[in-house]
């Protein structure tokens, strides 16, 4: 009797379990992020690209935004809270931004020129009451060009740059607009603001539990009607451990996970999950040292290394989750240009080049490269680097690795190849966010950005390259600027300035119930078009 009752209650329990799992689906999308905490909710987020993706461009807007609506071409910048912008014909440092009328923050207050100025003060003016060191740490290094800003009228803002700089619009796409009225309401305290945030974005952050989850609901009054979210709710959950992420997806606890490990992809696919990938401005390279004595100062050695890597073979290793590099930018990128040096797998040609440089498999070039066992954007650094190591050994470049932890590698990258922490290494496996002209090209190779001033780790310096960078900054016609950017990329590839190996494909795995997602070729994504079956 007792056992029968026990079985009965067990069965009811199981049924109940099933029904709760069903009830929680509906119009709610639950996302498992790789971050270990909810990114900062006050506007300028932390946690890198993922933070901006899930809690930046969802709840907030910037003056200029990325077009995230298409997946078949690299995204470009488009009007956001600013409807148009012009640079002064005589004084090329003076920019005028016309603001979008009628935009309201989630708290109901109005967005205007004063709020824009207030937000710049939040990041740049240490004496302003609303200055926030946390947001400033994230934001100010994104807008190095900005010297001053002022409101001309309620819908016009003037920004003056330190020197003429045509990349200003790209820089401004980073800067999120928080609500001054809400800050007042929260007792002029950013910690309180973080708990009940207010932006102008398509999503409102309605609740969050630190380190566990954040919930967003649609902003029905969003100014861009095509981007009013269709879902009822968007929930983001930090799940830093890759196997926990996959388990959460497979057990139906989340509907979407970021960055599934490549070895889990075949089983996820066979269990009916969708793997969504696309090119995006990311690359996986060896950043080469150009310090005196580095073997990579010889262009024949650089080209030989680039010809020695079997990128298709590596793609198999990664279950297809990569795009073999054809240049520094992903294939098809608008700045790709027409480089003449082709990054194909040709070990014979590589051996010939090395022989000219005085090396052979019998008498190999020996050098040391810095790598990390893991890290944001580094993909699977250990097996991938070992793969490259083996390829290079076959043509006569004998590489030994100096393995350091990811956090340490970042610090060595900042310190530069000449610094003692680099331990005499002549290269570093580093992956790059290459979304705009500065992060894509200039910061790596501009002469005056060598450490400690910047992150030109390898101390590369070529006046001809610097001239091209200056040209980008002073060319205000987008079409002409584009031509210069192509020339820069051609120079990157033709002179084999990096060992260019691969691009990540920004893989995410999701349940078949997720419909309508368009994966833009960008670090950021649009969640407004998504529905749940």
């Amino acid at each position: 009797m007792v056992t029968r009752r026990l079985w009965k209650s067990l069965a009811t329990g199981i049924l109940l379990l099933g029904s709760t799992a069903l009830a929680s689906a509906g119009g709610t999308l639950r996302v498992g992020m790789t971050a270990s905490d909810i990114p900062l909710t006050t506007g300028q987020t932390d946690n890198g690209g993922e933070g901006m993706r899930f809690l930046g461009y969802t709840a907030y807007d910037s003056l200029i935004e990325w077009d995230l609506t298409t997946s078949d071409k690299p995204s470009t910048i488009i009007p956001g809270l600013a409807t148009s912008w012009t640079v002064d014909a005589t004084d090329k440092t003076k920019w005028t931004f016309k603001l979008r009328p009628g935009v309201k923050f989630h708290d109901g207050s109005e967005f205007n020129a004063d709020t824009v100025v207030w937000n710049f003060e939040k990041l740049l003016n240490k004496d302003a009451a609303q200055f926030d060191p946390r947001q400033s740490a994230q934001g100010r290094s994104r807008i190095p060009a900005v010297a001053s800003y002022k409101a001309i009228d309620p819908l016009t803002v003037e920004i003056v740059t330190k020197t003429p700089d045509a990349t200003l619009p790209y820089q401004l796409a980073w800067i999120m607009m928080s609500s001054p009225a809400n800050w007042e309401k929260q007792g002029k305290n950013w910690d309180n603001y973080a708990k009940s945030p207010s932006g102008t974005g398509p999503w409102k952050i309605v609740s969050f539990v630190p380190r566990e989850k954040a919930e967003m609901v649609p902003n029905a009054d969003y100014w861009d009607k095509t981007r009013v979210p269709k879902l009822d709710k968007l929930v983001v959950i930090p799940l830093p451990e890759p196997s926990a992420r996959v388990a959460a997806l497979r057990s139906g606890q989340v509907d979407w996970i970021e960055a599934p490990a490549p070895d889990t992809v075949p089983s996820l696919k066979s269990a009916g999950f969708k793997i969504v990938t696309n090119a995006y401005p990311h690359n996986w390279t060896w950043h080469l040292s150009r310090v005196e004595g580095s073997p990579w100062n010889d262009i024949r050695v650089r080209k030989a290394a680039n010809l020695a890597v079997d990128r298709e073979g590596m793609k198999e290793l990664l279950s297809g989750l990569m795009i073999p590099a054809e240049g520094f930018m992903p294939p098809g990128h608008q700045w790709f240009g027409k480089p003449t040096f082709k990054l194909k797998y040709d070990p014979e040609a590589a051996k010939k080049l090395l022989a000219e440089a005085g090396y052979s498999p019998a008498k190999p070039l020996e050098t040391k490269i810095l790598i990390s066992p893991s890290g944001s954007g580094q993909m699977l650094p250990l097996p991938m680097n070992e793969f490259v190591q083996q390829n290079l050994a076959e043509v006569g470049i004998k590489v030994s690795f100096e393995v350091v932890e990811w956090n340490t590698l970042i610090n060595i990258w900042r310190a530069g190849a000449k610094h003692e922490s680099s331990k005499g290494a002549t290269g570093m496996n580093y992956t790059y966010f290459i979304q705009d002209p500065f992060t894509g090209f200039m910061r790596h190779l501009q002469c005056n950005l060598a450490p400690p001033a910047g992150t030109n780790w390898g101390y590369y310096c070529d006046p001809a390259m610097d001239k091209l960078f200056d040209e980008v900054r002073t060319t205000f016609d987008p079409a002409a600027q584009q031509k210069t950017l192509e020339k820069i990329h051609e120079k990157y590839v033709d002179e084999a300035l990096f060992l260019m190996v691969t691009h990540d494909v920004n893989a995410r795995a999701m349940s078949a119930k997720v419909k309508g997602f368009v994966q833009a070729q960008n670090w950021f994504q649009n969640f407004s078009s998504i529905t749940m079956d």
Partner: protein
Amino acid sequence: MLSYVLKRMLLILPVALGVSVVCFLLVHLSPGDPLTAILPTDASAETQAEMRKLYGFDQPLPVQFVLWLGRVLTGDLGTSIATGRPVAFEVGRAVVNSVILAAAATLIGFFFGSLFGFVAGYFRNSWIDKLASFLAVIGVSVPHYWLGMVLVIIFSVQLNLLPATGGGPNGSSDARSLDWDYLRFLILPAVTMSVIPMGIIARTLRALVAEILSQEFVQGLTAKGLLDRGVFAHVVKNAAPTAFAVMGLQLGYLLGGSILIETVFAWPGTGFLLNTAIFQRDLPLLQGTILVLAMFFVVLNLVVDVAQAAVDPRVKRS
């Protein structure tokens, strides 16, 4: 008695100071930069220097230590670099979650451990004993994280009965009730964590029960005509104090949290927090968590010592 307690409490001071020095040095001497977690990777040298100053990392280590100690003495554990929230808040939440997990794991471990131990000891050298001993050995030796993943694959992925990760349907903090929606999140991590205390309790009890059974009073009870069931009850009574003592020790051990189990299940306890803090080089959070856990053990030891002294006066004199 009072003077003994006071003396023991005074002894805590040097221990606490030692603990804080060691945990401060451990955290600060390991390589890595705490600001990496909060600055964009290509932040300018100027921004870095400013943030370093803001967080006080530009000061010499001894000065940093004294300042930190001063704040700790006033009850301020500082602010987490990565999250900007007070360390006391972060650690407090995590400790509560770890205590819940440890208590659940101990209960499960105690129940099954005692069951296996008594049965194995009572039916010594029978197949039941062998089976129970086998399970106990597995319990002590199986790697936690592996068992955790296997349980997730079976109960979450294949059978879809229990959630794979997390501390509750709406996060752990707003669900401290005993309702099923919340409890189901606790089951897999608690079962995974319970296998070690289960194994240890089972092995201890098996030996103990066997020993009790060989004593003369058991023969006496049987001679008196008591049935097996009655004899067993006496054996249980004699073994219980040891079982509880072992359980207490195991509870203390589990309260420290398990980095592996909490990470596998994304359970928001101290182990998960420590893991995150280590990878982010969140020094204030790391220092605060280690210090709180260390002090926890110091106080626990004190309580045990005092309790023992209360029961057994000989302890006071030694």
